[in-house]
C-alpha cells in the first residue's frame, strides 16, 4: 500500500512535430503501461493534464494536440525542459484472445490507440485501423500504422482517403467483416455514433472516454461517468457499460464540478 505517487520530472529528450497541430515529446522516464492507460503530465509550476503514452518502456513519449493554455505552454517547451510524469493510471483496453480487431480513432484520440495497435500487432492480431481527421496534413502516425495494420483514412475535406467521418468507413467495414472487438477513441459525439453502429452490428466494442481529470487516482470525484470514476474504472469502457450510461455523450463535469451538457 504505501508507495508515493507524485510527479517526478525529467528533461525532454526530443520533440517531433507530427502534424501542423500535433507534437510528440520524448522523455527518459521509464514507465510500463498497458494501452489505454494514461499518465499525468506536469509542467512544473504551471499545470498538469492527462495524456496517453505513445511510447512505452525505457523511453516514453506523449503526443499532444495544441488546443488551450496547457498545450500551448507545452508546445513552447524546448528539448531539455523538464516535464513531470506520474502514472500510469486507469484500466486499459482488453484484447486477450482477439484475432481480428478494428481500431477507430478521431483526431488526437489517435494518441490513446497507437500503442494498442502496436501491442496487438505483436500478438499477430489482424487490425483494420480507421483514422478520421480534418485534412491530409493532420493524418497521424501513418508510417507506424502502415507497418502493422490496414489503414483507412477519412478526412473532413477528402484531402486524404475517404471524404467523411469515421463512421462512414466503419459501417462499410462492419458490413464486410466480423471483428472480435472494435476499439475507439475520439471526440465524444463521434464515439456516440460508433457506439450506435456497434450496437446495430452487435459488434463488441471498447471506448476510451475523456472526463475532466484532476487527481487521477480516484479521490477527487471530478471524472465521474455515472457511478464510475473515469480515472480508475476507465478510461476504457465496454459498449455494454456505455450503453447503460445516463451521461455518456450527454453530460460531464467541469473543473468546478459543475455538470455541463457536452
Amino acid at each position, binding site marked *: *500500500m504505501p508507495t508515493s505517487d507524485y510527479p517526478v520530472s525529467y528533461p525532454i529528450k526530443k520533440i517531433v512535430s507530427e502534424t501542423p497541430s500535433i507534437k510528440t515529446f520524448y522523455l527518459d522516464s521509464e514507465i510500463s503501461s498497458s494501452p489505454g492507460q494514461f499518465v499525468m503530465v506536469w509542467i*512544473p509550476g*504551471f499545470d498538469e493534464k492527462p495524456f496517453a503514452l505513445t511510447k512505452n518502456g525505457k523511453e516514453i513519449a506523449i503526443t499532444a494536440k495544441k488546443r488551450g493554455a496547457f498545450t500551448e505552454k507545452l508546445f513552447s517547451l524546448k528539448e531539455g525542459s523538464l516535464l513531470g510524469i506520474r502514472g500510469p493510471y486507469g484500466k486499459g483496453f482488453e484484447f486477450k484472445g482477439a484475432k481480428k480487431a478494428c481500431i477507430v480513432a478521431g483526431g488526437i484520440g489517435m494518441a490513446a490507440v497507437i500503442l494498442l495497435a502496436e501491442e496487438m500487432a505483436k500478438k499477430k492480431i489482424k487490425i483494420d485501423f480507421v483514422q478520421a481527421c480534418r485534412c491530409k496534413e493532420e493524418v497521424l502516425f501513418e508510417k507506424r500504422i502502415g507497418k502493422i495494420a490496414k489503414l483507412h483514412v477519412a478526412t473532413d475535406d477528402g484531402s486524404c482517403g475517404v471524404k467523411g467521418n469515421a463512421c462512414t468507413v466503419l459501417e462499410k467495414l462492419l458490413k464486410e467483416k466480423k471483428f472480435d472487438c472494435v476499439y475507439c477513441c475520439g471526440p465524444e459525439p463521434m464515439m456516440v455514433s460508433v457506439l450506435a453502429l456497434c450496437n446495430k452490428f452487435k459488434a463488441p466494442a471498447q471506448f476510451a472516454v475523456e472526463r475532466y481529470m484532476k487527481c487521477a487516482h480516484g479521490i477527487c470525484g471530478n471524472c465521474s461517468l455515472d457511478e464510475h470514476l473515469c480515472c480508475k474504472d476507465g478510461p476504457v469502457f465496454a459498449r455494454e457499460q456505455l450503453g447503460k450510461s445516463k451521461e455518456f455523450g450527454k453530460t460531464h*463535469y467541469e473543473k468546478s464540478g459543475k455538470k455541463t451538457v457536452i
Partner: protein
Amino acid sequence: MLETSFCGLKMQNPLILASGVLGVNKNNLLRAEHGGAGALTIKSISLEPREGHKNPITAVFECGMLNAVGYSNPGLKEAMKEFADLSEFSVPIIGSITAGNAEEFASLAKEFEKLSFSALELPLSCPHTPGFGLLAGQGTPEATKAITEAVRKETRKPLIVKISPSIPNIAEIAIAAEKAGADAINCGNTLGPGMIIDINSGKPVLHFKVGGVSGPAIRPIIVRCVFDLYQSVKIPIIGLGGVMNGRDAIEMLQAGASAVGVGTAIHYDGPEVFGKISKEMEAWIKAHKYKSVQELVGIAHK
C-alpha cells in the same frame, strides 16, 4: 452489530464518507454508499462556483496524501439542483458548506435548509484555501463561535463543526462550537499544511505549493485530538483522519469518537473500503464479545 445513531442519524455502521473525497456529485455519493458507507458527506459547497487550485491538487506520499484542491465546487446554485432530490439514497447524507465569513455561512445554511440533508457540517479548518478556513482566520474560538451561532439560527438540522488538528489548543475551539450550539464536532480536517518538492525541478509538486496532510500519517495525532476532545466537550465526536482498517476505526471509537470518518483510505482500497472496514470491525467486536459499537466509545479513558 455495527448499527449506531449519531446526532439522531440512523447509521448501519459508524463509517462516514469524508467531505471532499468523492462527494462532488450524486454519482460519487452513490458509489460510496454501494461501497458500504454508513453515512455520506458531500464536498463542501461555497456561494459561488470555484475551479479551485490548478493541478496537481493531490500528491500521494509514502504515508498518505497532501491535497490543495482549493474548494473547487459548482457553487450553491448548481448544488441546489444536484442535491434537490436525495430520495435514491438509503443512508444519511450530510451537507457541507464553506464560506469566508459568518454571514455567508448563514446564507448558505438558509438555502441548504430547503434540501433534505440529514445534517449540516461546517469546515472551519481547511489549511490551503485563501479566503476560507484557517487562511480566513476561522481557526479561533471567536470565529468558531460567530460562525456557529450564525448558522445555528438558520438550521434545525444537526450541526457539525469540523475543526483542525493543527491547532494546539483544539479543545478551546470545540468548546466554543459546543457553546454556540453545535451538535457534534468533526475532528478533523487535514493537518499541516505540508509540502513535497520534485527535486529534479526544485518545484513544489502541488500547484498551491502547500496542502493539507491526510491519511495514515496523521492518524495518531487525530486519535490524540479525539482523546482530548472527549474530555472537553459533551457533544459527540466524529474521528476523521487516517483510518484505513477495522483496527484504526476501533481505536477512534475507543479514543472517544461516536462515528468514524474515512477519506484517504479510498485511495488505497477504493470506495469498497467501507465494506472492508466494517467486516474487520465486526470480526473484532465479535471476538472480543462486545455487543455494539457504542460500548467501545471512550473506553481508552477508563
